[in-house]
């Protein structure tokens, strides 16, 4: 249709238009992009600051800035309150950001009036490399972003409960149990120390009289109530719930029919480590489920 030179010129024109359109699109969205990048990099600065805080600051000021008695005062909300105080009573004229930055970088050469009623072993050391500390200027900036974020981001959320294995402690208070979740745990396979995956039901049948490895748990709620009355019972349980709890956390406390269910004298076939794999909630749910088996 066209000769070679014309085709080349058309091609070049199309490519040039595409380039110009692309640059135009970048131009139109550049303001938003820059704002987005600013937010991204601020977010990353806060993340870095949080890691640094955990590494360098939390030992004295607490993981959530709540302070550690005898070591360091609280920062959240202490640092913000203290700044307001200084501004009002001392005509302190620097910005909050600089106040925090200076305190971290240069430390506290003399004791401040902040939490004057408390006694701390050491004054705040210098942290910036400029003053002989370990941190680079950008790391100080990141820390400042993290600390400012306590106020800027709004109220600090309630601390997240963390997993805590019940272990062999029978005195730990249990939350209310959920029998449905307990039943799910009953069926769930959990890896054992021996390497084999096992569940409660792998060893305990729920059919009356059936013995797989351990005794059948059909009607365990009723059985448990009888067991604690039995003359040879030497555990500490006073209620059926406590009996079940003891059997799970400390299986060696009382072994029913030792010739049948003991692996060695005084050692039950039931693993003694189950408590390490359960939270208090897991245990409560499991007991709630077993208590439904009347």
């Amino acid at each position: 249709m066209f000769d070679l030179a014309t085709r080349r010129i058309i091609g070049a024109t199309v490519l040039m238009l595409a380039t110009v359109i692309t640059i135009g699109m970048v131009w139109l969205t550049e303001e938003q992009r820059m704002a987005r990048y600013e937010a991204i990099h601020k977010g990353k600065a806060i993340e870095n600051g949080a890691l640094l805080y955990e590494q360098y600051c939390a030992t004295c000021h607490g993981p959530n800035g709540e302070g550690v008695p005898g070591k360091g005062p609280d920062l959240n909300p202490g640092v913000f309150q203290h700044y307001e105080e200084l501004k009002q009573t001392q005509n302190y004229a620097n910005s909050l950001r600089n106040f925090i930055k200076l305190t971290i970088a240069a430390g506290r050469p003399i004791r401040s009036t902040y939490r004057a009623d408390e006694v701390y072993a050491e004054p705040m050391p210098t942290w910036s490399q400029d003053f002989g500390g370990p941190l680079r200027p950008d790391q100080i900036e990141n820390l400042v972003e993290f600390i400012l974020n306590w106020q800027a981001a709004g109220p600090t959320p309630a601390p997240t409960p963390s997993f805590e294995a019940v272990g062999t402690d029978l005195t730990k208070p249990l939350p209310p149990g959920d029998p449905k979740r307990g039943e799910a745990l009953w069926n769930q396979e959990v890896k054992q120390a021996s390497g084999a995956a096992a569940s409660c039901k792998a060893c305990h049948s729920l059919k009356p009289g059936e013995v797989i490895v351990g005794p059948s748990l059909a009607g365990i709620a009723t059985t448990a109530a009888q067991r604690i009355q039995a003359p040879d019972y030497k555990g500490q349980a006073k209620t059926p719930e406590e009996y079940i709890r003891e059997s799970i956390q400390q299986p060696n406390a009382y072994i029913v029919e030792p010739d049948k269910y003991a692996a060695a004298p005084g050692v039950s076939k039931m693993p003694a480590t189950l408590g390490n794999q359960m939270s208090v909630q897991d245990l409560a749910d499991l007991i709630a489920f077993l208590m439904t088996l009347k």
Partner: protein
Amino acid sequence: MALRWPEPIPTLQKEVQQYGWRRVIFMHLDELVTRVTAGIPLTEVRNIIRGEPPPRPNPRVKPHTEGFILHIKPSFYHEAVTRLYPTFRLGLLSFYLFLIETITGIFLMIFYTPSPLVAYENMLRILNNVPFGQLMRDVHRLGAEAMVVAVMLHMLRTFFTASYKRPRQFTWATGVILLVFTLFLSFSGYLLPWDQLSYWAVTIGTSMAEATPPPALGRIVNLILRGAPDIGAAGLLRFYLLHVIFLPLLLFFIFFVHYYKVVRHGLSLPPEVEAVGDDTARKVPPEKRVPYIPDIAIQEALWGIGLIAFLVIGAAFFYDAPLEQHADPLNTPLHTTAPWYFLWLQGLLKDPFLLALDRLGLPRPPSTIYNSKMIMGVILPGLILFFLLIMPYLDFNISRRYSHRRKALVAGLVGVSAWTLLTYMGTPAFAVTSSADVEVLQEFMPLNPDPLFGEGKVRTIPYEQLVPGTYDTRSLQPPADAPRLARVLEDLKRRVETDPHLPQGYAIVRISEVQAGLKRFEITLRWLKLDEHHQPVRDEQGNPVFQEAKRAIYLHRDSTHGGG
């Protein structure tokens, strides 16, 4: 029709009286165009656009004799080199890329100070606060990678079409120097962002300098290059000056030597159009001539525009130059690599010779005799470079025909394969061993973006799906409304449970919200401690002892990982 200026004193008024205003405007326009184009009058421009043949004498060659820019360009090409094969325009593209790098580089220089105190901050400013800053940086970086590729391919092309042979041996040698300069130009720019990626890549890349024999010289070379035993403020300034002045100027100078030789000998024809042993590039018969203006000029303009379109569209939509955390000399990222074009060196430094000895069960030679770093890091690369430089002078086969160069072509392919293999060996995928727990943590949440795992799977979870709580891989019950979290936890479970080095391994994941918009993600790995007989170690109660490894990262709502 020749136009004459009116005598004796031309004034605009007299001209208009004599010729009429239309003619006067045309005369002045013609004058302007002739001067701007260094010799092509307006009428001839019209003829060119209309596609008419040039008159005799040909005014279209005037810019080649009168003008500066085109005086180095031939006024006509042999028809056989105007197609894609055999040149693939790789030399032209390399030159264009050099120009684009210069322009975008000057833009970036405006906003950059070569000091460890502010360099990284400057990078953030270029990205966050300079309009078109990111586009310019991305084009600069993409162009740098493209330039390395173009120059490398250009060399391979020259080898495979045997264009390096007599009389072009010297052209080849200058080309090898240009390749080295291009690599070092790209490499010296690598350090400037002063992030973890650049800092450690350059630390690795310069680590062999110290192995230069003899040791006294090695120390001096290292000091000259880095400005101190380790890279710091002095090293950054040195790399900056290399990058923006020293190497570009040298490269520009050598480029003109190279291009002068190319034109002097003529663009080498495809091997098959010449008789064996002939070089007829300079004796182009009239019917084979393709004039530079307009045909080749249009072609070159098309390539230039195409290249710019590729870079701009690529940088705007498909490519983002990486920027990692601030450089931290105290924290070495796990899988540190050199830039991709130096991975072959990193592969050599892993020493295939010693690895082969190990594989064969033979003893390693003592390091007093066989200094691996010196031989693989300095002597061997030096020999390879020296061989590349003098290779054309050693090639006594006068034929350029492919069928007469079987050995050379096979050698070339073997060279390319070896390079590829060594490049693979340079990646962390090959023979990098760290403990299994560290590898798992690296795979799921590296502290710095990892060449193998990117930002890690944890950072792919949307912020909302990071539901606070404790998750145990032995009894996984992830929340139903967090499918991505569930996927990552499932992956973690599989990874930990199937790793042979983590017997009975499991992981506990704790997610907690520490500030509004900031969550902490912690992975604790536990696995059975084994003694030297691979039996579980037991405590006094006879319970197996577990080992533990822990790592936590923080995730902010706004720092869209992977998308930023």
